[in-house]
């Protein structure tokens, strides 16, 4: 009961139906699936790229942070060193100044002491001269007077020198 007509017409019918189904049913579906595949692929690629970029950025930031930290430490160290040096300088200067002042004061004192001593000696000398004059005016001859003055001068010289 093989039917030639059915056999041939069914092949033709199926081919026509296949064409219709493929054209209007399968193609849009396959196109959409392909689009989705491409979309997913693109998304994954993008995500990977973003991730790589983020990692790169993170590494960069980390490096920058480390660098700036190091710089800050260097700055701090330098500042500390400079401050140390400055303080040492200031201290040294102050010490020198104090020494100088002390020295000056000592010299001043010395000078004033000498002056005062000299003044006192002069005064004593004057007073002794006056006293001697007063005494001599009343009792001493010209000759004795002279002798005494000489002696006094000699003594004075010893005293002063």
């Amino acid at each position, binding site marked *: 009961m093989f039917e030639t*007509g059915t056999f041939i017409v069914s092949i033709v019918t199926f081919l026509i139906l296949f064409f219709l189904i493929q054209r209007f049913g399968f193609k849009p579906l396959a196109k959409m699936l392909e689009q989705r595949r491409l979309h997913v692929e693109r998304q994954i690629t993008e995500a990977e790229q973003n991730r790589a970029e983020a990692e790169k950025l993170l590494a960069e930031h980390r490096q920058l942070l480390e660098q700036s930290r190091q710089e800050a430490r260097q700055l701090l160290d330098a500042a500390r060193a400079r401050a140390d040096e400055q303080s040492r300088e200031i201290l040294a200067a102050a010490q020198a100044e104090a020494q100088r002042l002390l020295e000056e004061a000592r010299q001043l004192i010395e000078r004033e002491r000498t002056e005062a001593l000299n003044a006192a000696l002069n005064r004593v000398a004057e007073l002794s001269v006056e006293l001697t004059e007063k005494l001599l005016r009343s009792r001493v001859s010209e000759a004795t007077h002279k002798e005494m003055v000489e002696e006094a001068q000699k003594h004075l010289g010893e005293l002063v020198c």
Partner: protein
Amino acid sequence: MPAFPYLFPNSFPINLTTIGMMILTGLIVLVMLRLALRKLDMRSPRGMQNLMEWVVDFATGMARDTMPGEKAVQWVLPLAFTMLIYLFVANWLGLICTIAIHLDKPIPWLGITAERLEAAHGEVSLFDSPTANMSMTLGLAIMVWVISHARGLRHPRQYFRHFISPSPLAIIEEITNPLTHGMRLYGNIFAGEALLGILLGVPLLFGWIPISLPLLLVWLFYSAFVSTIQAYVFSILMCLYIGNKSFDEGHAGH
């Protein structure tokens, strides 16, 4: 065994029921696909679209299992998808319902002669699985055979060598393969429907108790299972036969 209306019954018999059912099946498939594609969305598929996407995935997996390379898979995918869904619908149509009318008078120009009508007890089938017809399934099988050879001839050297290597006996397969390919589908579907028809024809006990109902249900489930499996088997064998003669990727097949 019901009678069928034929066009040109004497010279070039065309089974009108089978062809009509083929067209109906195609329309159902097309309508289903168009429904699925109505709100085609790449991002959030829903409803029928999911189902159809699953069918495409299934057909792709089937083709990948049997074809030598990705190029051949993409080439055969539309045919595999169409064949799978088309045969599925075709096999199920005869299970969902069969319509037959009872004729008293023969219609000779449609091939419904008196003796045929008598052999069919006056039943003329109008709605049936198209795959329950031997000519139709053999037609599909021969179509697949022609497609596979046409594809094989793209690479003539490998094509002619594959007949004699590894063994010339393989030529026998070129005859048995399309025959079994078509007859397997026809036999399974036809047997399912024939037995369904007989079970439906069992007379009711006391006029109202349907004693054949449990048997009918069991057979209906089994036929549904067989229909689904046969659609898959026919499609995967189609992929296998075409894949065996695809030499695109320098691969002799399986």
